[in-house]
């Protein structure tokens, strides 16, 4: 199980890479969204915002009304943020679940893919 500190550290790394990636910033142009993360093994809750083509810091707890809700186990989130795990494999096996419109889900996947492939 990954602790809150481990998840925050992993996310900070992901955020730095994502915000510095010109392809990704172009991909999220005009796409301001609130994303909730929930871990089912540890019951942790986090909120990520995308505003002005930039990923925000990860806030502990659920804040605001989400556009997308991502649920999974803490270890998978940690590996995903580090770019060590292809989240699509977990999604296609049902271990990561998503709620939200197909277009929003595609963008989330795009962010995670860029982090995964470009790392």
């Amino acid at each position, binding site marked *: 199980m990954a602790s809150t500190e481990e998840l925050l550290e*992993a996310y900070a*790394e992901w955020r730095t890479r994502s915000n510095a990636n010109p*392809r990704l910033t*172009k*991909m999220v*142009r005009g796409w301001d969204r*609130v994303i*909730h993360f*929930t871990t*089912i093994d540890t019951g942790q809750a986090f909120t990520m915002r995308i505003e002005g083509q930039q990923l925000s810091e990860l806030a502990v707890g659920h804040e605001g*009304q*989400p*556009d997308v*809700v991502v*649920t999974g186990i803490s270890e998978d989130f*940690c*590996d995903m943020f*580090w*770019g*060590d795990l*292809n989240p*699509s*494999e977990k*999604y*296609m*096996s*049902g271990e990561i*679940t*998503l*709620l*939200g*419109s*197909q*277009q*929003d*889900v*595609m*963008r989330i*996947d*795009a962010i995670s*893919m860029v982090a995964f492939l470009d*790392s």
Partner: protein
Amino acid sequence: MTDAAATLSSRATLRRALGLRTVVTTSTGLAFAALEYLAAAGLVVYVAGDSAWIPIIVAGGLALVAYGFFGELNGMFPTAAAIRLYMKRAMDDRVALTITFTYLTTIILVIASDAFIVGRALAHAFGEPAWVASIWIVGLLAIAVVTNLRGITVAGLLQDAATSVVIVATLVVGILALVRSGHGLHTPLQPLHGHHPGDFLQAVALGVFLYSAFEWVTTSAEEVRKPRSINRGMLIAIAILCVVCAVATVAMSHTLSHHELTSAYPQLYLGIAALGHSGLWVMAAVTAVTALNTFNGGFITASRFIYGTAREGSLPRQLAQLNARAVPWVPVVVLGGLSAVVALLVALTHAWEVLVAVGAALEGMIYAVAGFCALRLRSREPDLPRPFRVRGLGVLGPVGIGLFGLLAVLASVSVQDKFDPAPLVIILVAGALSAFYVLRILPGIREREAARQAARPRRRPGR
């Protein structure tokens, strides 16, 4: 809070979520493609007089069985990736992938046939020669590809309006055509009069095709406000399709000549029978609107599925490339290209009845597969939560699998009311190509991907 309660709570707070109305119109709109009119006209030749409504009602009953299968599976796996999840848990993954790729053929066929039908209908309405339809076809598909590549999708409200227009217009035109004919129905209760019982089964197979794709709405399971909306929406969509298709088909059998029924645009003749020359324009416009739903739903469903499968590592990585608008551009372009080729081939060969038969057979096949998966998972994963549980699946499952399998076989060897193995050959070729890919090419792709991932340095500290 339990996981299920947490999920429900999350759905309730989503900023954008689909309600029951949009689920109903999505399910109905996906099923009601332009090909619907040709399938309805094709069904008429298998039964006597104006009794076409009977096989449509029977097919509606079978669609309810399929609804039960998909309802249970969707309840267990409420995700756009559901088909991958339940198939690989119910059977060998190689078999699951072969069936899935073969089934993808249906989506290409529906997109292609809609492009062809709309192209032919518009060319006819404008009084242009048949070859001009090819320009319409390429133009329509090009527009569909470009709008998809730009990430433009039909919003829920527009989709609600488009589907409502198609359904209401078809129903009104059908009723008006019947009323204006000025004479009573011919043998409305004797479908077998002068026909073989096998003909009736063929009519039911085509009838099942009239409902096909209603289940594609399950890919919206992640977007709905209430999970049960998907099942309720499918049920309401089946009822709507049953009424509209029954009225339109009986109206066609009652008012159109054999030549008109076997044309590429029987719905235009139905419009003329109902409203005179202005009816032609009404139905030409309605036909064009059906394409909006098909192109929007078909391209999105298929391209996102191909993308997800490529991301999972079961298709070449090139298919997972995204453009600047986060659209999987390679699948969209490939789908558009393949659909254009198929549509132009149909325009050249005038073999649209073959497309109808292939689609009917593949739908029968996938409904049988869904029944198998629902049944198999009862024994393999008995403890998986089932918010929707089909009663009597032990009996309904095998009966449904047998019936859908039989209808698939019958539909695959008959075009119009004559024996023709062309649909079966097309399905076998598609199946063989899928199996060749899964058995011979995919292992290499997976090996290379595994080696690539193994060579990647782990970024997470201490791992």
